């Protein structure tokens, strides 16, 4: 027979006990059981079999219990729990505060260590979440793609870019039903605006078609979204640009609709049709103004719409919901074959790909990219580092807390004797941990707020905790809070259990010594921390040396003391243009502070355009090579000190106002190599054919040495130079280094004299060139910050370990001293262990540092080879820091009077 059912021990009653307030429990339980028993004997069921009766009674019991789940009952619960806990909490708080105050230095180290970790974490988290938030203001973000384009010539990748032909968008939209919408964009460069008599220069604009505002969700302040950018010569300005161009009262932007301005030499005015909000910081596209794409398409020249060879356009596609973009991408090879017929149309084999818009900021390595990009890998690495710092900070905290166990052991013993449960002690210690963590949080927030602007400066962003927190989704915030809370709790847990598990008998007898348990953990942690510190120090050295190398490298071209004067925006091309520029140059050269002046289509540091179809006239007609081209005037190579290896420099007679009559070129050494000519001398006199099926021949009159047109990450490319002037070519003015201000003022006077009505804009070439290293400099700064952090955190770990061992060995030291050991003796005995640990750490950091730095240096076409000093110096530094850190604790221990430590023996 089955055991008789006992309601008291049933699951149903246990359920009741779980939620029912204890002061009501007995009564309710009793009443329920009584009811259950009476249900069993209910007259309604007197004829039922016993089994049914029991089942009915059980069912009713369960129902009754469930009915007690009502606020009137459950709320009585909470009140009682709070009542009990506030009493205990107060006691915990007092004890915790007393402990904090008793060990001021120790608590400060503890709180501060944790706070630094948390602050670093918060700052990094801010940065990372900003970087990850790019373009997410676009509603169709997950369906929007950038079309990218790789070009191959002779089987080799010659261009990896986002630029392509204007026909791509419309043709794809026609051929593929998956495409819901496309937009076409071409960077328009500087917008030189004239309104009445005022000039505005330097605003960046794009030509964009009428679908732009439907693909991207830039907010409009005025204008009708659906009709923007449709007609030629219409424009949309950002808020800031509009406010600079036109007087705006009370942000009434609608009043600006219909206003007009002139651009450069255009006689037809542009009409403002819309004003959009300033571009959000987290947009990959940036612009000050948009001009309608249809402006480019003229009745007599529809290349901007129909060309299969003009490649300046960027395309964005919006796919229909549910489309697999990889599937669409797989149809592109056939598309390319259909329209480009191998390399028959554009001179190169065209491959097209789709890049999800959400990857545009972090995962782009394209040439001619208009996106603001950052390294996705670096962002994720930062996040890992942040997590790392936090974990290490917490482990340090655990170490420091448990290393103080001896101080608290007696307290624990006494509490236990007085009748404290283990659980109460655990509660107490966890509470203390939470208190310390809370303090650390406060300090961390103060740190974050005070370091915010410095951090922004270094990272080059405009972040604040506030904007990040408000922009984050609530789930993300929840995750962060959860992680922090779990971490705080977990780090409080271990010490709490260690401390509360002491046996009162051993502790109070005075026989308590620490076990070596956890010592290995502690030591390996210190080794680990110092390994990363040493590796980071090595990294800092190498990064700064590489940056230094790049800043001081011999570029093959002398860019020092060069001022770039922007070309006059309001000077049309005519047959006298060259003469005017020449006399401007000559007048400049007569200014006392000026050494020489030259004009060129591009200045050093700029990415050059490429020509895809260049061959020598004695090569087969289907041969083609890709060479970057640059137009220069005859004084360029002299002004920039570029060495001529063979042949001659350009002569003034090589120039001609009629483009068709030009027939001389100079190439660089790499181009000689690419074209397959044996040596530089042999190249002189050879003829170059330019363009597909081209018949026009250019004679090579000279070969110049390679120079770094772009930053040292990039290899030096084959280059070809043509003797050309142009209306947009800036003037490079080489000046003497003394009294620059006066020289600049003189240059301006000359400029104003020659080009009245144009605005004078200048910049220092070296600064512009070095701007290419902004990312690297920033990386260097970030690495040094992490280095400092790592050192601080490691030192905290070491303090924990040294105070732990020192406490453990007090008696040993006492005995040694009694037996006559000297101070030096004891200090060296105590420190040798740590020195050994740090040494192990430093040495094991070597291979890590070596390989990771090699890896990093590989990303530069030209880089340093790290010497021995970069690896040995960090060892010395780490050792020194470690010794200084532990010396306090050790000397203190060594100086203790043995009488104090041994008197109880």
């Amino acid at each position, binding site marked *: 027979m089955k055991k008789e059912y006992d309601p008291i021990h049933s699951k149903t009653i246990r359920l009741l006990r779980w939620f029912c307030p204890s002061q009501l429990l*007995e*009564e309710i339980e009793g*009443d329920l*059981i*009584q*009811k259950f028993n009476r249900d069993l004997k209910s007259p309604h069921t007197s004829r039922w079999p016993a089994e049914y009766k029991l089942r009915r009674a059980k069912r009713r019991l369960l129902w009754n219990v469930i009915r007690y789940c*009502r606020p*009137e009952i459950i709320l009585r619960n909470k009140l009682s729990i709070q009542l009990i806990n506030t009493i205990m909490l107060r006691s915990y708080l007092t004890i915790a505060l007393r402990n904090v105050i008793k060990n001021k230095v120790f608590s400060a180290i503890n709180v501060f260590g944790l706070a630094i970790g948390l602050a670093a974490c918060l700052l990094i988290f801010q940065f990372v979440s900003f970087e990850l938030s790019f373009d997410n203001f676009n509603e169709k973000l997950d369906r929007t793609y950038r079309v990218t384009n790789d070009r191959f010539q002779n089987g080799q990748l010659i261009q990896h870019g986002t630029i392509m032909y204007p026909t791509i968008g419309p043709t794809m939209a026609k051929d593929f039903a998956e495409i819901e919408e496309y937009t076409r964009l071409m960077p328009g460069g500087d917008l030189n605006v004239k309104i009445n008599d005022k000039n505005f220069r330097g605003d960046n604009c794009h030509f964009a078609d009428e679908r732009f505002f439907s693909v991207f969700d830039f907010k409009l302040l005025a204008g009708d979204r659906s009709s923007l950018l449709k007609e030629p010569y219409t424009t949309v300005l950002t808020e800031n640009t509009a406010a600079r161009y036109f007087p705006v009262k009370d942000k009434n932007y609608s009043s600006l609709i219909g206003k007009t301005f002139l651009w450069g030499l255009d006689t037809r005015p542009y009409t403002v049709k819309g004003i959009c909000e300033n571009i959000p910081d987290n947009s990959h596209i940036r612009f000050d103004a948009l001009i309608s794409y249809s402006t480019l398409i003229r009745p007599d020249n529809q290349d901007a719409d129909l060309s299969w060879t003009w490649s300046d356009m960027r395309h964005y596609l919006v796919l229909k919901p549910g489309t697999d973009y990889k599937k669409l991408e797989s149809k592109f090879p056939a598309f390319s074959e259909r329209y480009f017929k191998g390399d028959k149309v554009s001179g190169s084999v065209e491959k097209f790909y789709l890049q999800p818009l959400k990857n545009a900021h972090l995962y782009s390595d394209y040439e001619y990219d208009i996106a603001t990009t950052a390294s996705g890998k670096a962002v994720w690495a930062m996040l890992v580092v942040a997590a790392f710092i936090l974990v290490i900070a917490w482990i340090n905290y655990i170490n420091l807390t448990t290393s103080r166990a001896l101080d608290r052991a007696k307290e624990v013993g006494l509490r236990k004797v007085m009748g404290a449960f283990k659980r109460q002690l655990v509660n107490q210690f966890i509470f203390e941990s939470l208190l310390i963590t809370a303090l650390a949080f406060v300090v961390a927030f103060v740190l974050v707020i005070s370091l915010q602007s410095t951090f922004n400066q270094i990272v080059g962003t405009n972040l604040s905790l506030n904007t990040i927190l408000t922009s984050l989704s609530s789930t993300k915030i929840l995750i962060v809070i959860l992680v922090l809370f779990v971490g705080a709790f977990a780090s409080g847990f271990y010490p709490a259990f260690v401390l509360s598990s002491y046996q009162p008998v051993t502790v109070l007898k005075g026989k308590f010594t620490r076990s070596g348990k956890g010592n290995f953990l502690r030591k390996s942690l210190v080794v680990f921390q110092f390994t990363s510190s040493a590796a980071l120090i090595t990294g800092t050295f190498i990064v700064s040396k590489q940056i230094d190398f790049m800043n001081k490298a011999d570029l093959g071209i002398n860019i020092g003391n060069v001022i770039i004067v922007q070309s006059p925006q309001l000077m049309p091309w005519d047959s006298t243009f060259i003469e005017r520029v020449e006399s401007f140059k000559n007048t400049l050269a007569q200014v006392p502070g000026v050494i020489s002046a030259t004009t060129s289509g591009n200045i050093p540091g700029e990415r050059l355009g490429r020509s895809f179809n260049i061959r020598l006239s004695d090569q087969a007609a289907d041969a083609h090579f890709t060479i970057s081209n640059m137009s220069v005037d005859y004084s360029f190579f002299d002004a920039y000190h570029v060495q001529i290896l063979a042949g001659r420099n350009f002569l003034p007679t090589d120039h001609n106002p009629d483009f068709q009559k030009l027939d001389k070129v100079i190439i660089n050494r790499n181009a000689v190599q690419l074209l397959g000519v044996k040596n530089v001398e042999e190249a002189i006199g050879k003829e170059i054919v330019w363009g597909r099926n081209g018949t026009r021949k250019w004679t090579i009159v000279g070969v110049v040495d390679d120079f770094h047109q772009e930053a040292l990450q990039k290899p030096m490319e084959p280059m070809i130079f043509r003797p050309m002037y142009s209306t947009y070519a800036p003037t490079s003015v080489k000046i003497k280094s003394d009294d620059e201000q006066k020289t600049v003022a003189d240059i301006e006077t000359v400029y104003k004299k020659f080009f009245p009505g144009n605005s004078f804009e200048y910049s220092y070439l070296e600064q512009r060139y070095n701007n290419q290293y902004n990312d690297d400099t920033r990386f260097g700064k970030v690495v040094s910050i992490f280095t400092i952090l790592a050192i601080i955190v490691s030192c905290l770990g070491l303090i924990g370990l040294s105070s732990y061992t020192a406490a453990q060995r007090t008696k040993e030291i006492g005995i040694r001293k009694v037996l006559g050991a000297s101070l030096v003796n004891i200090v060296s005995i105590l420190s040798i262990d740590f020195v050994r640990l740090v040494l192990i750490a430093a040495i094991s950091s070597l291979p890590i540092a070596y390989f990771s730095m090699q890896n990093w240096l590989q990303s530069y076409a030209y880089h340093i080879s790290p010497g021995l000093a970069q690896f040995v110096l960090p060892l010395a530094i780490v050792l020194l820091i470690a010794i200084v850190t532990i010396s306090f604790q050790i000397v203190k221990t060594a100086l203790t009077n043995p009488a104090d430590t041994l008197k109880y023996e």
Partner: protein
Amino acid sequence: MAKEYLGEFEELILTLVAGLQEEAYGAAISEEIETRLKRDVNLSAVHVTLYRLEDKGLIKSALGGGTNERGGRRKRIYSITSAGIATLRAIKEVRIDLWKMVPQLKMS
């Protein structure tokens, strides 16, 4: 009149507490309601009302003895306070006053 009004169920329970005297505890009250008023009532409703009346100061309670039938759990015996009595009486008087307004109907 008391400041606080009593609901119908509250009044019922209060009256039963007064009437059952030594036997006024949760289960007994609910049984009494079931047998006398033929009205189905849940134990939890009775308890909640009892607690509410106690909060209002109309009844007070003390733990009594346990029985086997209750698995040894003690009963909580409720008794009416003088405030409770006053409230009950006030209610009754108001009812009688009101009843007097009703024209006497002939009972067939």
